[in-house]
C-alpha cells in the first residue's frame, strides 16, 4: 500500500508540474478558470436573451448547475485521454511510463487527482458567479445533503473509471485520440441532458441517454440540491430508485471500463501503438 501511495503521489506531483508548467501562474489560472466561466456566461446570455419571453427560471437554474458539474466529465474523464496524448505525442514518455513498475492505471489515477482539483475549482467558480453575479440561487435549507454527497461521490467514481476507458481508447487509436477526446466531451454534453431535459431528445437517443451514469448524476444533483430535476420522465422516479440506478450504472461502467481498458491496452501493445505519434 505504501508503494502504491508513493507512486500515486509521484504521478499527482508530475500532473501538477505539467498542468502549471511553461505558463505564468496568471495564465494558468486563466486557462483553468476562463473556459468553464465563459461556458457559464454563454448559457446565461442565452437565458437573458429569452428571459422576457419565457419564464423557466427554475429549469434554467438546473441546467446551469449541471453545466457546472460537467467540468468533472471534461477535466477528469476526457482529461485522462489527454494525459495519454500528451505523454505519447508531446513528451514521448508514454513508453517509459508503461514499461516502468508503476503501471499505467496507477499513473493515470495519480494524474487524475490534479484534474479533479481543477474541475472542482471550475465548478465552484461557476456556481459562485451564478450565485453572486447572475442571481441564480437556491434554498440551502431544502438541500438533501446525504443523497447529494452520495450522488456526487458516485459521479466522481464514474468520471475516473470512464476516464480509464478513454485513456485506453487514446492508447489504441493514436491518430484519432485528440479529436476523440473533444468529441466525447461534446457527446456526453448532449446525451446526458446537461442543459436540457433528456425528454427533448429523439426517441433513440433518449434510450441511449438512459444507459449512461451521468444522465442520472445530473438529475440527482439537481433534485437533491434544488429540490427538482429537469426530466419529466425521471421526475417520476423515487430518490432511492434514482440513486440506485446511478450506483448500478456507475458500477457497471466501472467494470466495463476496467475490462475495456485492459483489452485496448493489450491490443495497443500488440499493434505497437504505445510509442506511435500521429504526425499529421
Amino acid at each position, binding site marked *: 500500500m505504501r508503494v502504491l501511495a508513493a507512486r500515486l503521489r509521484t504521478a499527482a506531483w508530475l500532473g501538477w508540474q505539467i498542468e502549471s*508548467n*511553461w*505558463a*505564468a501562474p496568471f*495564465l*494558468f489560472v*486563466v*486557462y483553468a478558470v*476562463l*473556459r*468553464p466561466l*465563459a*461556458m457559464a*456566461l*454563454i*448559457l446565461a*446570455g*442565452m*437565458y*437573458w*436573451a*429569452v428571459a422576457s*419571453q*419565457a*419564464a*423557466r427560471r427554475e*429549469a*434554467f437554474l438546473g*441546467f446551469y448547475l449541471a453545466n457546472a458539474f460537467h467540468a468533472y466529465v471534461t477535466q477528469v474523464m476526457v482529461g485522462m485521454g489527454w494525459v495519454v496524448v500528451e505523454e505519447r505525442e*508531446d513528451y514521448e514518455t508514454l513508453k517509459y511510463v508503461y514499461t516502468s513498475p508503476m503501471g499505467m492505471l496507477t499513473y493515470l489515477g495519480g494524474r487524475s487527482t490534479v484534474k479533479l482539483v481543477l474541475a472542482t475549482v471550475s465548478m465552484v467558480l461557476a456556481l459562485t458567479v451564478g450565485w453572486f453575479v447572475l442571481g441564480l440561487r437556491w434554498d440551502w435549507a431544502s438541500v438533501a445533503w446525504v443523497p447529494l454527497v452520495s450522488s456526487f461521490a458516485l459521479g466522481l467514481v464514474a468520471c475516473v473509471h470512464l476516464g480509464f476507458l478513454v485513456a485506453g481508447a487514446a492508447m489504441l*487509436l493514436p*491518430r*484519432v485520440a485528440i*479529436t*476523440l477526446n*473533444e*468529441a466525447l466531451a*461534446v*457527446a456526453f*454534453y*448532449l446525451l446526458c441532458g*446537461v*442543459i*436540457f*431535459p433528456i425528454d*427533448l*431528445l*429523439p426517441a433513440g437517443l433518449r434510450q441511449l441517454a438512459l444507459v449512461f451514469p451521468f444522465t442520472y448524476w445530473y438529475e440527482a444533483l439537481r433534485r437533491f440540491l434544488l429540490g427538482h430535476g*429537469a426530466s419529466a420522465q425521471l421526475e417520476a422516479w423515487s430518490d432511492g430508485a434514482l440513486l440506485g440506478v446511478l450506483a448500478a450504472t456507475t458500477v457497471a461502467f466501472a467494470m466495463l471500463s476496467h475490462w475495456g481498458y485492459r483489452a485496448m491496452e493489450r491490443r495497443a501493445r500488440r499493434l505497437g501503438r504505445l510509442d506511435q505519434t500521429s*504526425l*499529421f
Partner: protein
Amino acid sequence: MRPGEGLVHFLRAAYARAYVRMVGSFREPVWLITDAILPPVGMCAFVLLYRALGAPPSFEALAVLGGILSAFWINVLWGMGTQLYWEKQQGQLQLYFVSPVSRMAILTGMAVGGMLATTIRSLVGIALGFGLLGVRVPAFDVGMLALVFVVSMLALYALGMILSSAFLLFGREAWHVSNALQEPVYFMSGLYFPLRTLGASAWALAGIVPLGFGVDAMRQVLLGKDARGLAPVEVETAILAGLAVIFLIGARLALAHLERLSKQEGRLAQRWQ
C-alpha cells in the same frame, strides 16, 4: 525573381501545404467522424436548451447558425493559430524558415486545406439543425449571405494569421491562451444569443473578434428583425471588410517582426519553448 514568379511560387507553396490537410482528411476517414460529425452535436444541445426554455423558434435557428460558424473559429484557432507551434514541435518549422517559401503562403495553404473538414462540419451542422431537429428559417437572400460569409471569413482567417505569429514568440504560453479562447470568444461574439443582449458592451465585444459582426450580420440576412441585430447588415459588412484589410497587413508585419525576434533569441527551432 521575374515578375509573376513570386505569385506562382506563393500559389505553389500554398497548394502544397493545403495538400497535406486535404489528403489527411481522406486518408484517415475516422477523422471525418470525430472532427466533422461529432462536434456539431454540441450545437444541438444549445438548440434544445432554447426549446427547453420555451424560446421562439428564431432562437433555435440562431443557435444552429452559431454552431455552424463555431467550426470556422475552431479552424482559425487550431488549424492556423496554433499550427506553426505544432510545426515547431514536430521539427518542421525550422525547415520552413530555412526555405524561401512565404510564411503567408504556408498559412494560406493551411487555411484553404482546413476548409474541407470545416465545410463538412458545417454541412453536418445544417443537416442536424435543419434536418434532425426541424429548425426552420424564412426565405432569405442567398447572394447577400454568401457575400457576408466570404468577408467574414477573410477577416477571421487574417486574424488567424496574426495568432500564428503569437505562437512563434510565446510558444506554449500562447497555446494555453488559445485553448482558453474558444468559449470566451463564443460568448463575446454572441455565437448562441443576440449580441444586443449584452447591452452597451456588445459593440466593444463584437469588435474584438470579427466573428461577432459576421455572426450578427449573417443572422440578420437569415432571420430579419427576429435576429435582433446590433447594426444594419451593410454597416457590419463594411466593418468586416475593413478589419480584413487591417488584419492581413497586420499579419504580414507580425510574422516578419516575430520571426526576427525569434531569431534574435534563438528560439525558433526549439521544441517546448
